[in-house]
């Protein structure tokens, strides 16, 4: 594990990376913007079109991207501890499936954006309660039971999503597909997601050492003084809420929640710092946020003026990275 001083240095460097990614997102785009415009916009000053574009469009979108990336990476890291499986991700227990059913049903009914978000959150929450209730039924918290329940609920949600897509009118399909792939074009305000991200980090960091123990097995954690059942319930509820907020803000963006904690953990292991959640959780949130900001900047500039759903880019980048990591794993054991 890293010393506290090293961990803080790494986090400071990652905060620098996050700021750079946000600045890049503010500068990049079809409308050329100068650095002076950026500082004018950030200091709250009024100015020309450039300042308005930054304040009204690019800054909220970049912040929303950062918040969603951070939420997904943090939720993924928590799920990996909960399921003791480095390949778990925030969606493995059906949260995104529930949100997709809610959002697509709202779109099918032609509801306004606020209601789409509301129903997406309600769907995520319902999926969470369903999995929680079923897996918790006989108070057994065995991982396979939880995982199986989540996978089945996700499959059920997938069927409902397919049903909605097949009966939806042609002109609504594009919006639905963008939502399913993950798209920040409809992010309303970044502040709810940013607030939840900050609260999520503040809630988990005091318990990060307990999470280290949980990742090493329930019996060991219990013997060393961790209250297993409440800790697991807490992780599950928190990771689900973080995921629900991210999905409500930007649809189900893939791979950030799976690949980012994995990348950070791999880097830490290379440095001999192991799987220390005290650094891993905040680092994953910062890296996840920065990566999604960069991916979203690419998504809206690469074939501008047409925009891509950011989820397509994270998946296109995430799949090769993940396959690369999987391919190397056997070598690690030798």
């Amino acid at each position, binding site marked *: 594990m890293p010393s506290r001083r090293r961990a803080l240095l790494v986090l400071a460097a990652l905060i620098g990376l996050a700021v750079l990614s946000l600045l890049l997102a503010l500068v990049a785009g079809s409308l050329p913007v100068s650095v002076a415009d950026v500082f004018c916009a950030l200091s709250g000053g009024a100015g020309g079109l450039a300042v308005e574009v930054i304040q009204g469009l690019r800054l909220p979108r970049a912040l929303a991207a950062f918040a969603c990336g951070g939420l997904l990476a943090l939720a993924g890291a928590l799920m990996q501890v909960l399921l003791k499986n480095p390949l778990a991700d925030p969606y493995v227990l059906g949260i995104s499936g529930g949100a997709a059913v809610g959002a697509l049903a709202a779109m099918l009914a032609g509801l306004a954006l606020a209601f789409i978000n509301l129903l997406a959150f309600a769907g995520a929450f319902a999926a969470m309660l369903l999995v929680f209730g079923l897996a918790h039924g006989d108070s057994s918290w065995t991982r396979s039971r939880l995982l199986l329940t989540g996978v089945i609920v996700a499959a059920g949600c997938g069927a409902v999503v397919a049903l909605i897509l097949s009966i939806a009118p042609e002109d609504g399909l594009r919006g639905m597909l963008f939502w399913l792939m993950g798209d920040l074009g409809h992010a309303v305000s970044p502040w709810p997601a940013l607030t939840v991200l900050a609260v999520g980090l503040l809630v988990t960091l005091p318990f990060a050492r307990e999470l280290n123990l949980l990742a*090493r*097995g329930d*019996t060991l954690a*219990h013997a060393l*003084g961790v209250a297993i059942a409440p800790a697991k319930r807490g992780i599950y509820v928190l990771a689900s809420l973080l995921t629900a907020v991210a999905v409500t803000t930007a649809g189900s963006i893939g791979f950030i929640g799976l690949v980012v904690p994995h990348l950070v*953990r791999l880097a830490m*292991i290379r440095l001999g710092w*192991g799987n220390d959640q005290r650094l891993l959780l905040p680092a994953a949130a910062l890296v996840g946020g920065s990566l999604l900001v960069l991916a979203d900047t690419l998504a809206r500039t690469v074939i501008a003026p047409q925009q891509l759903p950011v989820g397509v880019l994270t998946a296109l980048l995430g799949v090769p990275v993940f396959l690369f990591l999987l391919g190397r794993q056997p070598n*690690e*054991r030798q």
Partner: protein
Amino acid sequence: MNASEPAMNRPLLEAIRLEVGIGGHRICRDLDWRVDAGDSWAILGRNGAGKSTLLATAAGLRAQQGGRLSVAGLELPHASQGAGMRAMARVRGYLSQHQIDPFASTVMETVLVGRHPHLGRWDWESDDDRRIAASALAEVDLDGFAEREVQTLSGGERQRLAVAQLLAQQPQLFLLDEPLTHLDLSHQVAVMDMFARCATAGAAIVAVLHDPGFAARYCRQALLLFGNDEWLAGPTDEVITEKNLTRLYGHPLRELGADGRRWFVPG
């Protein structure tokens, strides 16, 4: 309320009319058992007799079916739930039968996990903790392994690492579920010698063992679980006999003597 009493007078583990069961099967009933500082107990019995279940119950990992159970004056199972758990983890250590490593980690990190109950919420492992961890590694013949990846260790090395983690925890009561699993003969002797020194230094040892010879050599007391809720507890010399072991294992055993030690071989 026991805080003013000298530590030596307070039993580290006390069971009164204890009843333990698992899956509808009763392991023991009316078990009266007291473990004091300096004691070294062996728990012997056939597969499925409930040795591990009794040990896990004593560690507070599962609740008893009846009777009273306390560790250093802390009543179980309550003391092993909620706020008192960390205090419990500073008093008793538990060595599990299985070690799992879902995530990559170094040997040093794995030992340092044992320091958890001694650290405050915002504390990071100090140089002192690292010294304690390093000397625990040395105790189990793992010096020089600190930076090794745990997933590359052999079974015996991994088992000794678990023992080192327990030593770093510095409990007063060591609850050991088959501590000699995967160990070669020389390390079996070294680990039992080391635990015997812990007992001499004022800790207490309770170990589930499979070799009555090791139990007779290293433990001063023995608890035999016959699997039909009968039990027998007492000094090793009185309890570990040909007759009792033959009944315990359902197989005739012969006692052999050499160098003033007793060994038992299947007849």
